[in-house]
């Protein structure tokens, strides 16, 4: 078994050397798209160029990426129940207190990141991740979704980001315009709406992925 690994090592070094040579062969000056982005930034509705690329210029990628996240959740849920984490992880008073303190702060941080994304570093994914972290903390302290919320309401919260994105994407089509084409006057508002719904969905999805299985899943394990 081991000799195969030794055989692999020179191959990997050759691969690294080849790729390294390729990287060094690139010119010293980048000629990317920063100029094109800067030219159109005024029409994008936001002033943070990364957000402009993510939600406007290449918004279609981001739409599909939201579907990727939903798909991961569908995949994990379709595997059925997972073993529950053992009782030893029941939190002590410290974690409990920390959670009470942290969760409201995290939610406020998420809201700030969402709002700031238009002009400064931040945006839906960072905000959603922070929201997800708040959810993970709650789950760690033993909080569970009440059964009434576990079915339909949870599923709606999970997909509301994709649905809002799809709706905004398809909106210009009946008028004969392009997919995801925003009117520059409303672009900022539309982006904020998409991001707000996306943040909720991303946060809930990440927290639910941490939980492991569909809380409404009654299948015996």
């Amino acid at each position, binding site marked *: 078994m081991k000799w195969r690994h030794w055989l692999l090592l020179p191959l*990997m070094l050759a691969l690294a050397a080849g790729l390294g040579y390729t*990287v060094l062969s690139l010119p010293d*000056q980048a000629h990317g798209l*920063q100029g094109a*982005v800067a030219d159109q930034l005024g029409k994008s509705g936001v002033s943070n160029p990364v957000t402009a690329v993510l939600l406007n210029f290449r918004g279609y*990628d981001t739409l599909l990426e939201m579907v*990727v996240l939903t798909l991961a*959740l569908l995949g994990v849920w379709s595997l059925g129940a*997972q073993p529950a984490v053992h009782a030893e992880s029941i939190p002590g008073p410290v974690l409990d207190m920390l959670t009470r303190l942290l969760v409201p702060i995290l939610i406020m941080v998420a809201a700030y990141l969402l709002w700031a994304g238009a002009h400064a570093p931040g945006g839906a994914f960072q905000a959603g991740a922070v929201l997800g972290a708040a959810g993970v903390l709650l789950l760690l302290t033993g909080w569970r979704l009440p059964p009434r919320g576990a079915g339909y309401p949870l599923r709606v919260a999970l997909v509301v980001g994709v649905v809002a994105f799809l709706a905004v994407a398809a909106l210009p089509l009946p008028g004969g315009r392009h997919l995801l084409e925003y009117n520059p006057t409303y672009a900022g508002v539309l982006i904020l709406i998409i991001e707000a719904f996306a943040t909720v969905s991303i946060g809930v999805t990440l927290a639910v992925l941490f939980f492991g299985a569909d809380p409404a899943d009654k299948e015996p394990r």
Partner: protein
Amino acid sequence: MSVPFLYALVGIGLFCLGFYALIVHNHLLRKILAINVMGSGVFLVLVALARRGGETPPDPVPHAMVITGIVVAVSATALALGLMLKVKAATGRAALPDQSRD
């Protein structure tokens, strides 16, 4: 060597290191970590090379691509971890059975 090329080479190193570990290790959790390290390497190449040529504001397009990539990576990791637990439950080991013996 300029800083962008330095980090791009580190990215290539991470890619190859992760690739090697992915093949060599049997434990599935380790393979999942290896895939993540490989991914970080690719992201590093993508962003570092955009810094070539100095202090002008960086190209935001690779930045947006990497944020997309990070979300794709966490999605794939979540599915892989769920699958790994099911493999463990079904076979008793968090490793893939040797195919040649099947």
